[in-house]
């Protein structure tokens, strides 16, 4: 059964169309990413799924129900941007309070340990750093043992270590069978965590695929860089069908091309007993795919 189904969602605020036409489905147990530049309509889409905004047109079903159905609040945990807590409420009080909202809450001591908040239990909300507030927010989204967790800009404001810890936590939550919708603009995060992605731009879905699928959809060239002990004869490589361009500067070599470029180049080098040092392969990343997709949709606008 499909967990979330969004069909031709449209939402405008006055004259500003925030979401023009968005459709996608989220399947059970997956981590589904919603990617897009600022102002693309991600947050409005998520708010509509949470039942906080009523769509102007289109339909949304969450676990087969209308998002405004209050019974869904027990099954959907939400961490939204721009939502806070009273300044003087402590971490422990917030978790203890939110735990009473649900019939079978998670053990919040465990949750705070996993999120690295164990030392901060008696700290008031106003005294937490941005990253700690963010982690508390994630804990509150997970405290009701939801079937679906919707996390908006999950790791914004976290330092790299905390970001990686949070990713581990999200994966462990998914492993317990929770379906996760992740709104993000970090490509690394999307690439690492998401099973499938919807790229939204100007209120429309411009791509819907796996991270690898999005990258493969780009017919980009690869680039190989290395150094050799002696300056390399460019002609050795320019003849290969995979190679489109060779550029040398002193002992630095840069080869661009397509297909199985790395194998073709290293085979020639090995045959000539040339040793390549500091060899680096640059492949298209989700970053490239994202920039390409959103640039194209900007042009079409």
């Amino acid at each position, binding site marked *: 059964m499909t967990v979330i189904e969004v069909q031709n969602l449209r939402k405008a605020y006055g004259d500003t169309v925030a979401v023009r036409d968005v459709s996608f489905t989220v399947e059970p147990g997956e981590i589904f990413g919603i990617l897009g530049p600022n102002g693309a309509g991600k947050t409005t889409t998520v708010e509509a799924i*949470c039942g*906080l905004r009523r769509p102007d047109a289109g339909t949304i079903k969450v676990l087969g129900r209308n998002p405004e159905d*209050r019974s869904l*609040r*027990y099954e*959907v945990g*939400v961490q*939204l941007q*721009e*939502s*806070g*807590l*009273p*300044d*003087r*409420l402590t971490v422990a*009080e917030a978790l203890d*309070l*939110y735990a*009473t*909202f*649900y019939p079978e809450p998670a053990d919040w001591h465990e949750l705070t340990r996993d999120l690295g908040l164990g030392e901060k239990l008696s700290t008031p909300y106003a005294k937490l750093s941005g990253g700690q507030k963010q982690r508390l*927010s994630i804990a*509150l989204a997970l405290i*009701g043992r939801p079937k679906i967790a919707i996390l908006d800009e999950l790791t914004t404001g976290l330092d790299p270590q905390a970001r990686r810890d949070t990713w581990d936590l999200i994966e462990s939550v998914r492993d317990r069978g929770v379906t996760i919708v992740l709104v993000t603009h970090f490509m690394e995060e999307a690439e690492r965590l998401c099973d499938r992605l919807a790229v939204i731009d100007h209120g429309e879905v411009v791509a819907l695929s796996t991270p690898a699928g999005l990258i493969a959809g780009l017919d980009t060239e690869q680039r190989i860089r290395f150094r050799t002990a002696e300056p390399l004869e460019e002609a050795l490589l320019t003849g290969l069908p995979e190679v489109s361009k060779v550029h040398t500067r002193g002992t630095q070599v840069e080869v661009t091309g397509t297909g199985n470029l790395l194998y073709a180049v290293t085979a020639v080098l090995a045959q000539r007993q040339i040793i390549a040092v500091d060899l680096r392969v640059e492949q298209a990343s989700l970053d490239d795919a994202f920039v390409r997709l959103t640039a194209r949709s900007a042009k079409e606008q």
Partner: protein
Amino acid sequence: MRVFAKLTLTEFRLFLREPVSAFFVLLFPTLLVVILGSIPSFREPTEDLGGGRVIDLYVGIAVVLTLAMVAIQVAPAVLATYRERGVLRRLATTPVSPLKMLGAQLAMNGIAAVLSTALVLAVGRIVFDVALAEQFAGFVLAFLLTLAGTLAIGLFVAAVAPSGKAGNAIGTVLFFPLMFFAGLWTPREVMPDILRRIADFTPLGAGERALSDAMTGSWPNLLSATVLLAYLAGFGLAAVRLFRWS
């Protein structure tokens, strides 16, 4: 019910952690009674008040002051801040309706007002020999009517205030003229007729008159009760229509 009790308890704890508002709500009205009561002439019966004492009047006024503090000063600032900071928005994604939080906030204010009023009455009775309300049921009724009418105004302020700071500012601007008509500076008994007429139609003026009726042994007068109910209905409905959760 368990959730509501927990929310109310949490709100009460947070209220106590704001020392300034906790002081003004819980202790200041009693302090006012103590200060005025320590002026010897205020403890003597005077002709101007038909044989009553100034301190007798100020016990009633201190109760109105308590209600004004919670309803016009504390509640709008807290609720507008909750909206500004997204506290209500976060709550809207949980099984608990933000309406429950609103209710808990109002309940907390009601409890604080009751505690402070009890302290005012006890100190008035024990230290200055101010008689407790002869018409106790009438006192409770007048108290509840005033609480409801002023909280409706506070909710309306919370509904229209764009931020916590604005809520606080609007509350403060309203507070002084409203307390003036409640007789904080010049008790209603010595106001000129025209001012007394105006005071009868202000929420705190009506509240003070209703409470004072009960203190002296009668039920709240019909005009004051009607005025308070009108504030409750008018501002209450407007607040419900205008309140935004985020």
